[in-house]
């Protein structure tokens, strides 16, 4: 639902613009603006909770101050949201500007509701394994720390969705025969499939990748997922052969109609440093964003803008190999 984000003097994003798709995989070196993109989105959500400031006159704008401008998909393409910043990183002014064309110029409330549905996740296996109690189960916490409670809430409030999630867990991890919920503890466990063991593995005994996958499944099987989901390092802890499954879990959010789901798509913005994950996007270069850093300045480019991509791939390299080699950009600068 966010059509584009334009940055001016925002951290490393001195002059950068990014058109967003339903699914976006952002790759690039450290400090190239991947996390800054997500921070700007979170700032937009924070300020959207507050009363709007009056429209500032053009001559009052600080022309070298940081600014982030958001445009939206229909039915809100008639509005522009501008984050004004007092410094490179302190942005405390949100202006909503009606545009000369487009729909929804008078529907800030409708747009605001969607922006408030934005969620960002940096999953933490230690938080997942050490559930806080009592804990809210209305939505998955940013670090996944309430996963056990969230799973129990899904089971109670949306049993069909939970059944789908459970089936996915057991398909992806055939070494387990059951997903056991323990709402009284805000926790869960997986039963080992081998009947001779008849053992339950608690979250602290499960691998990071298993916990992260469970958290992503809880998000993807939520019947009412957030409007926008940002997930950092989606490959973290995941075996390379499971990366396709992780991609498909997130595709369930972005392309619900493909799964026969009657709900609006969730816009996904994910980051990775994995060439192996990137290999899975060969047929969908429009979903890949390359963050490029030159000196202190960072920019974004869609992989599909690379018109010779087909020829490069025909030469024999995989997409991940091409990225690693540097021919696609998005690699760290090195001193000779």
């Amino acid at each position, binding site marked *: 639902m966010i059509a584009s984000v334009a940055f001016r003097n925002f951290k490393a994003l001195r002059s950068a613009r990014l058109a967003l798709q339903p699914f976006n995989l952002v790759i690039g070196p450290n400090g190239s603006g991947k996390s800054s993109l997500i921070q700007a989105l979170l700032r937009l959500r924070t300020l959207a909770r507050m009363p709007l400031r009056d429209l500032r006159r053009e001559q009052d704008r600080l022309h070298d101050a940081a600014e982030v401008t958001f445009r939206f998909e229909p039915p809100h393409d008639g509005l522009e949201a501008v984050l004004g910043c007092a410094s490179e990183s302190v942005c405390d002014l949100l202006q909503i500007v009606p545009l000369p064309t487009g729909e929804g110029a008078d529907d800030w409330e409708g747009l605001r509701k969607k922006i408030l549905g934005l969620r960002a996740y940096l999953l933490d296996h230690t938080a997942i394994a050490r559930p806080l109690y009592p804990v809210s189960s209305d939505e998955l916490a940013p670090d996944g720390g309430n996963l056990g409670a969230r799973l129990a809430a899904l089971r109670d409030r949306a049993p069909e969705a939970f059944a789908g999630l459970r089936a996915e867990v057991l398909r992806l991890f055939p070494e387990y025969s059951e997903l056991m919920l323990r709402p009284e503890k805000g926790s869960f466990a997986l039963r080992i499939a081998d009947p001779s063991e008849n053992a339950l593995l608690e979250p602290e005994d499960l691998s990071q990748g298993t916990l992260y996958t469970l958290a992503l499944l809880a998000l993807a099987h939520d019947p009412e997922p957030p409007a926008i989901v940002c997930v950092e390092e989606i490959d973290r802890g995941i075996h390379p052969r499971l990366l*396709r499954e992780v991609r498909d879990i997130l595709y369930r959010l972005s392309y619900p109609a493909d799964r026969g789901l009657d709900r609006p798509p969730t816009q996904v913005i994910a980051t990775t440093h994995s060439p192996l994950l990137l290999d899975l996007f060969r047929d969908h270069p429009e979903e890949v964003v390359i963050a490029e850093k030159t000196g202190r300045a960072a920019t974004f480019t869609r992989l599909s803008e690379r018109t010779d991509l087909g020829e490069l791939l025909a030469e024999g390299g*995989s997409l991940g190999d091409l990225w690693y080699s540097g021919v696609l950009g998005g690699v760290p600068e090195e001193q000779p």
Partner: protein
Amino acid sequence: MKRALPPDPHHPARPPRIALLGESIVDETATAILAEAVLGGPFERVQPNLRARGWPSVLQILPAIARHLHFHTDADGLIVLVDADDSEPHTAAHEAPGYFHPRCRLCQLRATFRRATKTLPPARGRERVLRAVGLAVPAAEAWYLCGLDETVGEAGWIEARAEGRVPYTRRELKLRVYGTERPTLPLALERATAAARRHARDLRRLENDFPGFAAMADELRSWPRALALRSPRESASG
């Protein structure tokens, strides 16, 4: 109609032991069904967790896999299946003795396998691991559409490419087979398995329309004879 091979009195009674190397579990599952149809019976899968990460990873890893299978398993043969993508399709001209097309992935894989195995000493009671290579043009989804979509076939692909056209993309093939460009693994497995079972009843159309499959089938058909020619000690080793 299956082209089952007649029983060979010299052939070992046990089913052949075969390893499969593909770019995904979907392609491997379909290839296993097709290979059984070609061989006229079931085979025993060796090292079922082999996998390549797509081209060119499969070419890079093939020598190590061939060596591993030769020394550390009882595999009789290895089947390799890759997508052609935009590379040169394998044609009858490539089958000429000594011919090698540098941009044909099937020719490249055969040559790589040959180089990797020709100096290996006999091991585990056999001289060598047999080989069959298939090339799906441009992707395995084209095989799954064979017989259902008249516009899909290697001849039409080659003709269109010669005219500078792209008759269909990999994404379009996926959409036609799965109803979405982004199929889940279970959906992809279901459709690929159904298509392979359909072809297994009569392989002639797939062999006719897709020489990249026919090349693999021809190599597979030569295996029973090669296995039968192995010494009694080799046959008994399993």
